[in-house]
């Protein structure tokens, strides 16, 4: 029997002036199924998920119906809705209500009025299943993002729901915490048989395990099949969603592969081995000279040492780097390695106790603060919301520069013109990112620092964002970015540095950098390294496949 039956569901937000956000959506979700819902941001994924749990559905006009176990979901009592349909949201922080881990675990049970004995048993069970015992008594404020999201999941599982709905649960997490989280979700699905409905950007981690993928676009379902077949459907439709597919899928169709489509790196490797049984003739792409490599350095860091308190360990332990003018310079590395601390040191917020920073040849301490942050240096913070203080995007931008013409230019560059009169908090993550970038650019920086700019953004917004960065580079602006996003850095950066243990260990072009790593590298490289050398993006691999085929023909 179907768990959820969605019948001809249409929905219009009260504020949307008649524009349909969901357009006659119909599909069933079977019991115990692991269903992944994909689509660009704004395609109606979240709107659809919220319709599955009516206490969360916003005001608006609705037609069609949603059945849960054969009963219209809106007729379910609030108690049943709470207990049977679990819902995990995007932001790990805002979902937590109480200040202690144990209390958060018990929150749902308290709401349902469970008695002490049941609560004790369930809470204990959850703490063990999710490995929370060690931090059971801790304050929520001292948890990492990954732990917080795991706590949110555990707190919902404590109510023993039949269905688990997850709305981009890992978008705010670093890659390691994200894959831990997704593994836990998979474990719940496999071990408890809980139905899972998830929306997610990180399809690489989900596709191999999901039973089914539903693709949405403009409020409609445009594809609904097993994950293995979805790639072909999208490729044939030439749908932009194809770019969000896992690397092996993109390489497979992009290079005109035939047979069964690989979903994982492992499958991708064996597919490549079969495609080139005798090894590839063309092993690597021609080396292109990186035009910016020899430019004058815009930023020089020399032996920087920093710690927050006198008696805490050093965060920066001799950081040295030279950033060529006009380059996009990426610093990658694990969580808490000190990457963001380094950016703050460049801005002069953290003062290294040893070492020198030179910006455009001049020591940073020689700049007056007003001089440094005007026409020189600016930083886009990790959370773009940190920059918003006004009611509309326009006011935000005009706070920086009263020259309307210039504001218009920058707004056009960052593609935020249609959003100028919106409230900054009403924008999607990617739009907020661009609005914040516009605000930062209005200080006319020559050196732009970006802290995790791709966090929580889907692949389309990433591409738009990369386009803007390319335009900035063309104008001679130097960009330094720290990121977890290996794929993004491989594709767009000019230079990549590895940050580890308070130091910058290696620096090279993305091809040489990722090409010589075997774990800390892109999926494309892991998939193809036994056949090609230094192919680090899906595009590289596709180009090499093609080159070899042409060679054969």
């Amino acid at each position, binding site marked *: 029997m179907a768990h959820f039956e969605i019948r001809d569901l249409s929905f219009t937000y009260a504020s949307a002036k008649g524009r349909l956000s969901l357009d006659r959506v119909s599909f069933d979700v079977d019991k115990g199924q692991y269903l992944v819902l994909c689509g660009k941001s704004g395609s109606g994924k979240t709107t659809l998920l919220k319709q599955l749990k009516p*206490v969360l559905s916003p005001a608006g006009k609705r037609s069609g119906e949603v059945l849960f176990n054969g009963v219209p979901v809106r007729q379910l009592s*609030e108690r049943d809705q709470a207990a049977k349909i679990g819902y995990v949201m995007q932001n790990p922080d805002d979902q937590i*209500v109480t200040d202690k881990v*144990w209390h958060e675990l018990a929150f749902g049970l308290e*709401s*349902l009025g469970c008695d*002490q004995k049941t*609560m004790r048993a369930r809470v204990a069970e959850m703490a063990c299943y999710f490995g929370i015992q060690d931090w059971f008594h801790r304050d929520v*404020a001292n948890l990492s993002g990954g732990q917080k999201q795991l706590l949110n999941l555990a707190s919902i599982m404590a109510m023993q729901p039949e269905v688990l709905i997850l709305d981009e649960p890992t978008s705010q997490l670093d890659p390691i915490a994200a894959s831990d989280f997704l593994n836990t979700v998979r474990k719940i699905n496999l071990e408890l048989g809980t139905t899972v409905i998830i929306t997610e950007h990180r399809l690489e981690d989900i596709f191999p395990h999901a039973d089914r993928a539903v693709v949405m676009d403009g409020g409609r379902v445009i594809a609904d099949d097993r994950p293995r077949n979805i790639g072909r459907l999208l490729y044939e439709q030439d749908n932009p969603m194809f770019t969000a597919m896992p690397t092996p899928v993109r390489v497979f169709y992009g290079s005109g592969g035939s047979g069964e489509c690989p979903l994982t790196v492992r499958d991708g490797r064996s597919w490549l081995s079969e495609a080139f049984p005798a090894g590839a003739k063309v092993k690597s792409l021609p080396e292109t000279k990186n035009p910016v490599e020899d430019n004058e350095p815009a930023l020089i860091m020399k032996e920087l040492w920093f710690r927050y308190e006198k008696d805490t360990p050093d965060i920066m332990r001799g950081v040295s780097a030279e950033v060529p003018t006009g380059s996009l310079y990426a610093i990658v590395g694990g969580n808490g390695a000190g990457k963001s601390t380094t950016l703050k040191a460049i801005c002069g917020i953290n003062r290294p106790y040893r070492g020198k920073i030179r910006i455009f040849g001049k020591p940073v301490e020689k700049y007056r603060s007003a001089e440094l942050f005007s026409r020189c240096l600016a930083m886009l913070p990790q959370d773009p919301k940190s920059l918003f203080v006004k009611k509309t995007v326009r006011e935000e931008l005009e706070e920086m520069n009263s020259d309307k013409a210039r504001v218009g230019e920058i707004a056009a560059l960052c593609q935020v013109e249609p959003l100028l009169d919106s409230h900054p908090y009403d924008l999607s993550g990617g739009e907020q990112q661009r609005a914040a970038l516009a605000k930062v650019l209005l200080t006319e920086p020559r050196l732009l620092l970006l802290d995790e700019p791709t966090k929580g953004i889907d692949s389309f917004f990433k591409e738009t964002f990369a386009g803007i960065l390319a335009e900035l580079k063309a104008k001679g602006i130097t960009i330094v970015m720290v990121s977890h996003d290996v794929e993004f850095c491989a594709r767009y950066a000019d230079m990549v540095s590895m940050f580890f243990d308070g130091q910058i260990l290696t620096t090279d072009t993305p091809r040489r950098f990722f090409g010589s790593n075997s774990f800390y590298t892109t999926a494309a490289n892991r998939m193809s390294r036994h056949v090609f050398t230094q192919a680090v993006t899906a595009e590289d691999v596709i180009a090499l496949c093609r080159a070899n085929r042409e060679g054969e023909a």
Partner: protein
Amino acid sequence: MKREENDAFSRCHPAVGFTFFVGAIGLGAMIMHPAYIAASAVFAVTYYCLLKGARGMKLVALSIPLFLFLTFANPLVNHDGQRVLTYVFGKPYTFEALLYGMVIAGMLIAMILWAGCYNAVMTSDKFMTLFGGMIPTISMLLLMVLRLVPNMLRKIGQLAGARRCIGRGAAENATKKEQAADSLNVLSALMTWALEGGVITADSMKARGYGTERRSSFQIHTLTGQDICLLGTMGVLTVMIVRLIALGGTAANYTPIMEITPVTGRYVWGFAAYCAFLSLPTVLYIKEAVQWHISRSGI
């Protein structure tokens, strides 16, 4: 492990702690007798130092000048009394007023220290255990406040940092006016951020059934036999002390005529009860320390 977690009394049920502190501070405010105040101060200092260790000594040391100041200042405003020691600005400086000042100062310091102990022992989760069932909505609110404040403090740092990095925040050498204006700006941005986040928190509460049933409250602390025993002991002692106060056993008058009921003699049981009450946390601490010592040396 923090020192407070090491303390046997802190590990008792919150009801024990709360009753004790209400008793210690409440009874303390009703008794003006120098011997009782001295006892309260001594036990407060002892327990505070046990709880806080070396850091505790510091506050105790700091309170000595306060004690002296209040003691010697009182006769300057209070001129009643018979034994005139000297004249200051033509007004009498009396022995009685001096003693009264000492009593008031001692009481104040005892109260400060008991409040310090209270803050260390009665953590927010204990407070919640006590009142969560009684006033569920208000305690829910308090919980959320306790959760939000550290979050907001962190966010304030981020907001100020983000603004500085685009050259908008107050620089290091900013004037007071700029600093004030900038921090109000940050506060306003913080408010928007928190209110928008709050919408998600509210959804998360609804998603987990907040308000569907009468709320129960998860008790992380359980009432043990020892807790009941302690509550009983405190109850008996409190009744004795209240009886003592009603009988006038703690009566003390300073100005204009000094009359202090002696501690020894017919009211000695009362003084004993008062000391017994106040010494409970210290006794528990020492008892446990001794037990550990014995069990360790036994190994």
